[in-house]
């Protein structure tokens, strides 16, 4: 594990830098800490960070770039006619890597010397048998080209590793030396360290944003691949979802979108009144004792994993609904055939969203200034009149924002609908029938044996991107409304 050792020695050097930097600062002030511009530990941190961070950054970048670089060079060595039918260059490259790893393994165990490994020739040696002898199993005979590629791969990796170690060591030592020389009682170590911390914060923030952009872009490119294979008009405006593997699938988002919106609508129908009333009770009527245990209890609902809600839908709510609306049920009607239905999934999802709506609305209702309530009560309004005519209207934009956020969660919810809503894509207004949603279809298109070049699989990315655009739109709208509302009381 040379990389691990490299990191450990970097850490040791940096720790030493802390001690020495501190000492040098103290001695430049002749032992009097009051003479220093900054506290002594800042000088230590300055040296430690300057030693560690550039070296660590270079190490990380090198580790990311080196495999790509070598892969690129080595794969150019494999002639195209060597790639067998049904295989691909990337499969050949994994053979190359396995051979190279096998040779490394042989060298590490002393079976081969480094020179022997580089000089090995496929014409004289049965490489597959040899590697099998030391415990490295290969799937196919090793052709001379692959062996040469593997040897080059090995050699380049080794050279790369040495170069990397040298670069990192030089950077670390240079950083150490430079910052150590800089350390002097008038050096503004505190400002430098704080700037360093700020760049760390900026790095963390940009990492999150870049990841989001990366996710969107990867979805975007796969979606473009999908639209090369499948008609975009059918995807957006067709009316049937019927994937098959004969190559004439009908993949239209509309039936799925209908199912998604229908389930979400029922979920909101459950969650919004219950959540809102709970919030009004908790923020306006409940005394502190009730509030202090009811609010955490309600928020426990938010901590339940969605798969557990899915089980609840499948095992409790579904059978309960069948027992009511199904054959032999106590209503005496035969409206519902199976436990999975839009209503099952919608009701359970609504329960999941209750704490979401109530907690956000509670915050928003509490943000309505007490002066509003006093003003209304002082005019002789009852508590209920005050809530209905002053507090809720004042909180309305915020509550609408909360509902929109809940809606975007409902649309993106997966586990509950996978387990509760069913798998049949259709347009129907009957909530007791099973329907399917976008998220459910993404799961089913990507699980099992999948070929990532067929439209039946790639459609998942197009669905995902559509879903992303939908929820992003809702979130932006919700945030816009919430923000507009906040300005009102400033």
């Amino acid at each position: 594990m040379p990389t691990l050792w490299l990191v450990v020695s970097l850490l040791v050097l940096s720790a030493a830098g802390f001690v020495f930097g501190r000492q040098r600062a103290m001695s430049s002030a002749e032992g009097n800490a009051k003479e220093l511009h900054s506290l002594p530990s800042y000088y230590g941190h300055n040296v430690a960070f300057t030693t560690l961070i550039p070296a660590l950054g270079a190490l990380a970048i090198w580790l990311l770039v080196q495999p790509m670089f070598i892969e690129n060079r080595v794969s150019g060595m494999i002639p195209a006619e060597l790639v067998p039918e049904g295989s691909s260059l990337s499969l050949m490259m994994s053979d190359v890597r396995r051979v190279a790893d096998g040779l490394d393994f042989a060298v590490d165990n002393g079976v081969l010397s480094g020179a022997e490994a580089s000089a090995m020739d496929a014409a004289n040696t049965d490489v597959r048998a040899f590697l099998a002898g030391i415990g490295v199993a290969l799937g196919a005979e090793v052709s001379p080209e692959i062996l040469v590629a593997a040897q080059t791969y090995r050699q380049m990796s080794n050279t790369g590793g040495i170069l990397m170690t040298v670069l990192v060591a030089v950077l670390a030592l240079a950083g150490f030396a430079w910052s150590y020389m800089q350390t002097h009682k008038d050096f503004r170590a505190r400002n430098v360290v704080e700037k360093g911390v700020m760049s760390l914060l900026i790095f963390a923030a940009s990492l999150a944003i870049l990841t989001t952009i990366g996710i969107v872009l990867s979805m975007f490119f796969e979606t473009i691949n999908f639209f090369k294979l499948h008609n975009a008009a059918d995807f957006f405006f067709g009316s049937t979802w019927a994937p098959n593997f004969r190559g004439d699938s009908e993949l239209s988002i509309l039936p799925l979108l209908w199912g998604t919106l229908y389930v979400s609508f029922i979920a909101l129908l459950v969650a919004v009144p219950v959540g809102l009333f709970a919030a009004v009770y908790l923020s306006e009527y409940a005394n502190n004792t009730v509030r202090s245990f009811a609010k955490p209890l309600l928020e426990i609902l938010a901590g339940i994993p969605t798969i557990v809600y899915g089980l609840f839908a499948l095992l409790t709510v579904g059978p309960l609904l069948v027992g009511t609306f199904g054959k032999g049920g106590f209503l005496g009607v035969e409206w519902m055939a199976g436990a999975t239905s839009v209503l099952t999934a919608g009701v359970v999802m609504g329960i999941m969203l209750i704490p979401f709506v109530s907690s956000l609305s509670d915050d928003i209702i509490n943000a309505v200034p007490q002066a509003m309530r006093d003003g209304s009560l002082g005019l002789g309004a009852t508590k209920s009149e005050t809530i209905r005519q002053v507090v809720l209207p004042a909180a309305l934009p915020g509550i609408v924002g909360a509902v929109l956020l809940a809606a975007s969660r409902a649309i993106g919810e997966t586990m509950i609908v996978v387990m509760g809503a069913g798998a049949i894509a259709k347009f129907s207004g009957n909530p007791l029938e099973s329907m399917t949603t976008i998220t459910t279809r993404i799961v089913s298109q990507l699980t099992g044996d999948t070929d990532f070049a067929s439209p039946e699989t790639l459609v998942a990315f197009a669905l995902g991107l559509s879903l992303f655009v939908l929820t992003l739109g809702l979130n932006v709208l919700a945030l816009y409304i919430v923000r507009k509302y906040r300005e009102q009381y400033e």
Partner: protein
Amino acid sequence: MNDMQFTDRAVDQKETKIAAQGVNVHYGDAHAIKDVNVEIEDKTVTAFIGPSGCGKSTFLRCLNRMNDTIDICNVTGNILLDNEDIYDKRVDPVQLRAKVGMVFQKPNPFPKTIYDNVAYGPRIHGLAKNKADLDEIVEKALRRGAIWDEVKDRLDKPGTGLSGGQQQRLCIARAVATEPEVLLMDEPCSALDPIATAQVEELIDELRTRYSVVIVTHSMQQAARVSQKTAFFHLGTLVEFGHTGQIFTNPEDPRTESYITGRIG
């Protein structure tokens, strides 16, 4: 007596509107108001003065039972409005507050239109028979709030968009619209600039012709300018109560004198 400047404002003895007898208020364990007796006259401006935390706002809020909204607050003693105990079980605090209106320290217009702000009370209490009736009530209240001319062309604009002084006069108009008998004002000018303060003070003096007004203020000049009777509170007790002229020129209690000359508080 050197209260010549006040003599012309000394009022005749008027009938008592609110009589407080032996009022004590506790916030949990804290004893905020200690045995206060005071008689507030009709068609008179009564000022409550005293240092911060002396209980004047608390006492004011007892007069329309606004303290009921605070869980830990406990009021004992008798407060009689027109000889009826407002803390009697049969009294609905909601109806009491319609009779005893309140204006708060910070202007607090509802986030509604100017019209709806003023119409809020009349609507709740069903004072208007129809739309034209309500329009008339709103206009009358806004005129009495001395703000009609400024807002008559923008009644459908939000009340929160007015300036601070206009907002406070809107709140006064809103309180007046429910036809209260007593108007309580808790430092109504503390968030206003001197010009808006002058407008509100002028308004208070006009309101005196119809209502009994009780005003809590930190400004002794304001108390002297607008009130006929003044009550001085200190550490939860009513130290002195009498004609404003007398309190400010010839106080009986040494604590009152110290406060109005700026030595305590």
